């Protein structure tokens, strides 16, 4: 999988775009090895960092953990990008991204006393947002997780302490 940061060209929606924030965004992964992403109007500030990280992770070969880990799965990458285009707003810290052994991935945000993870793991049929504030925990299936993310997004404003 590689992710093209092609921000120009024709607008060809291949999935229902976010109606609220980035109405001219499209993701296409018709080919087997590349995800093409086209963004109309303004490119969101977080996007390049996310693409850089995804491209770095896409270079991990199968077995990268020495325990049978799979290469990054294209459908999980697409789902994660869709989620970000749905929930990210200007000023929110760029998420960290770590791979799962199944080929899925996790997005994560941290702030004082707050830990947020979004899991995209199609191999295990799991897409979930996990929010932890102190000792309290909440979770929501990704398709319905916008409200849960919005409830903590104010606390995720600003720069992340440091991002890999």
């Amino acid at each position: 999988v590689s992710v093209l940061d092609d921000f120009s060209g024709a607008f060809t929606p291949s999935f229902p775009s976010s109606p609220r924030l980035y109405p001219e965004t499209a993701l296409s992964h018709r080919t087997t090895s590349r995800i093409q992403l086209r963004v109309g109007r303004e490119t969101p500030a977080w996007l390049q960092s996310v693409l850089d990280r995804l491209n770095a992770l896409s270079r991990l070969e199968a077995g990268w953990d020495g325990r049978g880990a799979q290469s990054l799965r294209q459908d999980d990458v697409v789902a994660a990008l869709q989620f970000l285009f749905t929930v990210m707003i200007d000023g929110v810290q760029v998420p960290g991204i770590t791979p799962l052994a199944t080929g899925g991935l996790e997005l994560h945000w941290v702030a004082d006393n707050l830990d947020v993870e979004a899991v995209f793991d199609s191999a295990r049929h799991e897409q979930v947002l996990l929010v932890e504030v102190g000792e309290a925990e909440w979770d929501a299936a990704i398709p319905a997780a916008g409200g849960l993310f919005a409830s903590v997004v104010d606390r995720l404003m600003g720069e992340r302490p440091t991002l890999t």
Partner: protein
Amino acid sequence: LSSSRALPGDDAPVERRTALYRLVPTSQCEVRDGQWAFRSSAFDNSSLPGFTDEMSVILGDTLAALDRDPLDLHERFYPSDPANWGVARLEAGCVVDSGPQEVRRSPTVDERAHGDVVGAKGGGQRKRLKKCASWVFPPSRPADSG
């Protein structure tokens, strides 16, 4: 040299206070305040066919009986790339209490102290396992090296 502790049998129960050591690569860490911090994805099952319900660990009681410590595990398992690996420590009791998980001994030809944490590990379970963990030592690769 003789070991000061008896080697546990392969079927011996793993006591709650037993240390479990988990090798963690930099790809499953983030950098926080200039230091490697593991993410919950580091505490996942294998993807090897037939082992997808098992997370490999090294059992501290067997290590001790062998007069070994966890400080060279990264070099033993990943001799060509040790700088990209750290070792985290979890206590068996915390692991078992975190959810439907079981700790088993599963010695291999290469590692007498090998064990498994057996059970499904969805996102919530991985987060609970992460709470049980702390670094023995983080990866030695500089955390700001990209």
